[in-house]
């Protein structure tokens, strides 16, 4: 939610900047775009597509997550000259570190989950298990999490979404990528008015 909201916010602000400065908004030119597709595909199958995610055993889902994030990290390194990618790179790196340190999934502290869901719902899940089919998170007490400050420990009031510090960096980076490309856009050409 936080990630797609950042893209929508970046789009709206970018459109506003482009309209105010009367410029043509040029999309940022990604290099090696096929790496994003190759990187996202394993996660799409393991976590997003309902028809396939329930068939992925935990070990394969974990391998898909880590492998996918490594590919996306390579993509970000190859595109590090673009504005905002630096922040996405840091966020992705921090998420990858905490995921690797905790057995291949993002840890969710039980203490954080207890703020957001009833105790009886939490009681159904064993410590160290994934919180739902198709989730990237495992439930753990804070004392058992390695690098707990990088886990999914943040949430907003009136929302059940939890996110990590790395997610915040990724959201800011995506927002800045869109806004900065609008700020550096070229003025309208005469033929555009014809």
């Amino acid at each position, binding site marked *: 939610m936080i990630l797609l909201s950042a893209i929508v916010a970046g789009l709206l602000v970018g459109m506003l900047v482009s309209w105010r400065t009367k410029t043509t908004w040029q999309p940022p030119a990604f290099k090696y775009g096929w790496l994003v597709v190759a990187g996202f595909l394993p996660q799409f199958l393991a976590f997003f597509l309902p028809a396939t995610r329930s068939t992925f055993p935990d070990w394969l889902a974990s391998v898909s997550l880590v492998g996918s994030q490594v590919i996306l990290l390579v993509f*970000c390194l190859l595109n590090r000259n673009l504005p905002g990618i630096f922040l996405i790179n840091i966020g992705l790196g921090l998420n990858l570190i905490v995921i690797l340190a905790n057995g291949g999934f993002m840890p969710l502290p039980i203490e954080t989950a207890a703020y957001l869901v009833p105790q009886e719902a939490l009681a159904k899940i064993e410590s160290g298990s994934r919180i*739902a089919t198709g989730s990237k998170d495992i439930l753990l007490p804070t004392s058992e999490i390695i690098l707990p400050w990088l886990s*999914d420990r943040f949430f907003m009031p009136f929302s059940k979404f939890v996110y990590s510090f790395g997610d915040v960096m990724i959201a800011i980076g995506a927002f800045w990528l869109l806004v900065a490309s609008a700020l550096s856009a070229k003025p309208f050409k005469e033929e555009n008015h014809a």
Partner: protein
Amino acid sequence: MKNSLSTFATKINPTHLKFIFMLVMLAMLVLGAGAPSDCGGIGR
């Protein structure tokens, strides 16, 4: 209907298409890089 579709088609230029591809790639990148979770779905 046909007329409005053809008007719409003529308004799409390569920059618009590039922009849509860029947005799809950015969405895939951030969804793959991030790991937020919906606690509302716990146990499902």
